[in-house]
């Protein structure tokens, strides 16, 4: 199994505040890697560094390397737009574009990048909505607003939207924290199926979720990566005392 993403000595800052300290991690291809840790430990900052969304925040800076299949995404001359197309992202709160239809929400990434042939778009929209297990629910109302869907459907719409630009890696930033248990189960099922074709990194607050869906897990604390290992080992026999304390619920 190849390493899809390799992070070395990654540090991230907001102005003078250091949010991540020398992170080193290798993410295996077509696996689900979960990032767990208490609030404010830098989980979200970490995955936002992987698709160069961190620098969107004013005064935010990054040092170190992130290699996507060997290519450093932070080397000068690399276009962040290209990187974001290869590494998709699903956010914590479902955020469909409110003035666009369901169809246009899914097609937005293509349309706004100049792909306008209706047949091509139709095919992509149907394919990714099917992948996101949403096609049957929305196929008769593709012209309706994305906001007319339920929270869980909106989140699956956002996943379909991310799939439409053909990424290799998908980052999930606590995708279920705003959803009810049934919608959560659907998203988890979806992630489980998506890993056949995509490399997935998911930030989660929910340790059961990490245990259910991930192959490996990384534990973050105060901007440092404390431990990385197979999910099974991590939850049964953690090496670090702090990891053990966190997963047994003694803090966090």
């Amino acid at each position: 199994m190849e390493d899809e993403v390799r992070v070395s000595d990654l540090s991230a800052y907001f102005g003078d505040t250091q949010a991540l300290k020398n992170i080193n991690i290798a993410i295996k291809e077509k696996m689900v890697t979960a990032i767990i840790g208490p609030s404010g430990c830098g989980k979200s900052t970490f995955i936002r560094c992987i698709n160069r969304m961190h620098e969107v925040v004013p005064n935010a800076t990054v040092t170190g390397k992130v290699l996507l299949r060997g290519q450093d995404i932070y080397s000068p001359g690399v276009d962040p737009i290209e990187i974001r197309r290869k590494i998709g992202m699903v956010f914590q709160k479902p955020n469909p574009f409110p003035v666009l239809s369901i169809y246009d929400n899914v097609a937005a990434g293509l349309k706004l990048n100049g792909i306008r042939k209706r047949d091509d778009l139709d095919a992509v929209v149907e394919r990714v909505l099917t992948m996101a297990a949403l096609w049957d629910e929305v196929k008769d109302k593709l012209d309706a607003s994305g906001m007319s869907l339920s929270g869980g459907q909106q989140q699956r719409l956002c996943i379909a939207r991310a799939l439409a630009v053909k990424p290799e890696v998908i980052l999930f930033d606590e995708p279920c924290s705003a959803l009810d248990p049934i919608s959560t189960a659907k998203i988890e099922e979806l992630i489980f199926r998506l890993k056949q074709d995509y490399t997935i990194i998911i930030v989660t607050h929910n340790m059961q979720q990490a245990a259910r869906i991930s192959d490996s897990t990384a534990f973050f604390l105060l901007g440092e990566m404390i431990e990385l290992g197979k999910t099974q080992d991590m939850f049964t026999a953690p090496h670090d005392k702090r990891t053990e304390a966190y997963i047994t619920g003694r803090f966090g």
Partner: protein
Amino acid sequence: MNIYRKRKIIDVTMRAAAFLCAIFTLVPLISIFSYVLSRGATSLNLSFFTHLPRPVGEPGGGMSNAIGGTLILIGLSCLWAVPMGILGGVYMAEFGNNRLGSMVRFSVDVLNGIPSIVIGIFAYTLFVLPMKSFSAISGGFALGVIMIPTVMRTTEEMLRMVPHTLREAALALGISQARTIVGIVLKTALPGIVTGILLAIARIAGETAPLLFTAFGNRFWHQSLNQPIAALPLQIFVYAISPFDDWHRQAWAGAFVLISIVSLISLISRFVIRPRYRFSQSR
């Protein structure tokens, strides 16, 4: 108990006072409308819209030149003030969180407070003096200057109301910042921006002072945009201060038409420009 009764009395009085004040603001509006309607509507007929003014003493005639002139002046000012206001607003909202941004924001607010006659003088020195003629262009310039603060500030406010998460969602799809702004942010804010533009148009449609020495007025159809052009507010002014009863009636009719145009624009901005989809986060 005593304190309770006292509080109760104060409550009722203050509530009544607030209610009366709120109602009282309607009085000027309603009286203006009904008065202009009663005086103006009776002098209104088809030829008012289709004919040129007649010389004194000759009955009939209309203000077609002034109605057309006002529309042309509005068009001229929108032509440059709308793109400038929108682009300026985009800068302020998307890139303006710095010293330059707050300086511009402050200046625009000051510009908004400058008396319109001063803007007229400004346009006079900038256009009328060098061109050696009053002109539609100078009038369009003066009205545009009045429009810009409204258009720019509404654009900015509306763009700021677009949640940050939508920008991030678009950027994360590998959409460039330029296309994110045009395709997502501006599109989301469009109904609000259009409302701002319509309100700005409604305001300049009735401006008189800045046109006094720019557009100047014209009793005939203008021949080119380099020449003086008629405008409804100017024509109303000239007719109203004239000593002729017939002209007074025409002035009332003109006032009625002007008020109708402005109210219509306000109404459109309220009701017709609805977003295809509601712009509000559900739940």
